[in-house]
């Protein structure tokens, strides 16, 4: 590995550097999210053919599946950041973990609502206590628990550490969500898109899905960067670099 990478990462961990880095990258992330989102939605809602069994009702997967993937992906990011925050006490890791939670909770909520809307006509029920649905609901409660615990403390850093512990323990639920359809007899179907092995979906339907997946990833990055920037300013309120930004903003 090149020598400069660890050094660069080390520098990136300092709040002022990350503040500038996130600020420079955020517009690009947002633009990419919009671009891939529009392509994915057009491809999914207009170009993709109707399904042989479900007709047009299957089109909810272009929202439901990317959201479900994000609900697990964001939890994994939050878990890793929480781990770094607990062991190395890096301020940036705490902020990243805590600011990921509301975005992840939103994606989990979207997953549950869209799944429910699809479940009523297709399965015949809004909700059933099968392993996949229940574990996804537990994931939502874990997110809400992390958000609640973080805000329950007067001291934000102390709150972040307590919530980080909850986030790390809750990460065990992520593989349960993913493998629930294999471990138990569930109403929810198994995986359609597989990284290893053939996917059980036609290409005309797969590419809008992948485009939406990229869109949600970029949206997460854009949203996280904005939230982290705001939080860093609040946390480092008394520091020189924040004062300089405030002064330059006041001048313009």
């Amino acid at each position, binding site marked *: 590995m090149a020598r400069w990478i660890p050094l660069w990462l080390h520098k990136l961990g300092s709040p002022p550097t990350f503040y500038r880095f996130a600020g420079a990258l955020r517009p690009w992330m947002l633009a990419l999210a919009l671009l891939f989102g529009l392509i994915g939605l057009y491809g999914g809602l207009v170009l993709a053919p109707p399904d*042989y069994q479900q007709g047009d009702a299957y089109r909810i997967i272009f929202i439901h599946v990317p959201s479900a993937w994000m609900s697990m992906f964001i939890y994994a990011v939050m878990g890793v950041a929480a781990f770094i925050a607990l062991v190395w006490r890096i301020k940036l890791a705490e902020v990243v973990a805590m600011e990921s939670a509301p975005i992840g909770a939103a994606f989990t909520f979207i997953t549950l609502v869209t799944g429910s809307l699809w479940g009523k006509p297709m*399965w015949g029920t809004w909700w059933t206590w099968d392993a996949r649905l229940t574990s996804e609901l537990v994931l939502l409660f874990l997110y809400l628990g992390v958000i609640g615990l973080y805000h329950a403390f007067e001291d934000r850093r102390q709150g972040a550490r307590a919530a980080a512990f909850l986030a790390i323990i809750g*990460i*065990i639920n992520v593989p349960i969500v993913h493998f629930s359809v294999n471990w138990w*007899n569930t109403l929810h179907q*198994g995986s359609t898109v597989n990284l290893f092995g053939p996917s*059980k979906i036609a290409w005309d339907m797969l590419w809008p899905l992948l485009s939406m997946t990229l869109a949600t990833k970029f949206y997460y990055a854009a949203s996280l960067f904005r939230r982290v920037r705001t939080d860093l300013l609040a946390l480092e309120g008394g520091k020189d670099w924040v004062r300089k930004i405030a002064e330059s903003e006041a001048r313009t």
Partner: protein
Amino acid sequence: MNPTRKRRLIIVALVVAAASLAIGLGVYALQQNMNYLFTPSQVQAGRADHYKTFRLGGMVKGGSIQRSDNSLKVTFTVIDAGGAMPVEYTGILPDLFRDNQAVIATGHMDGARFVATEVLAKHDATYMPKELKDAMAKAHANKKIEEAAAQDKTP
């Protein structure tokens, strides 16, 4: 790594390991007795005898659906690899309910018949356009004809 960080690392790793073990054992235990559904052969083997109401899961046997003329009553047969069970249901069925579709019915046994209070259709994980499905069915049928023809030719 300095001693404080090392200590924190060990503590966090231990807590995560302990929690994983506890939850892993819980999940393993649930696998033994958490049954969302029973299949017809499992029911006929007496696995569902302790339950007053339970879920029956399997495929709708092709051609077994019979609708009543003057009510919403439907009777059909649910099959799995080694068993079949007649099911009776009164009510509106989901869109995906049809021949050879996986279904999950909630209800109770009435003699050898299963009386359902709710019927859910299970969707498989395959998505494809209708044209592709038709083309595949056609190719499948052609292949069968060719095979039959090939068999006829061989003396």
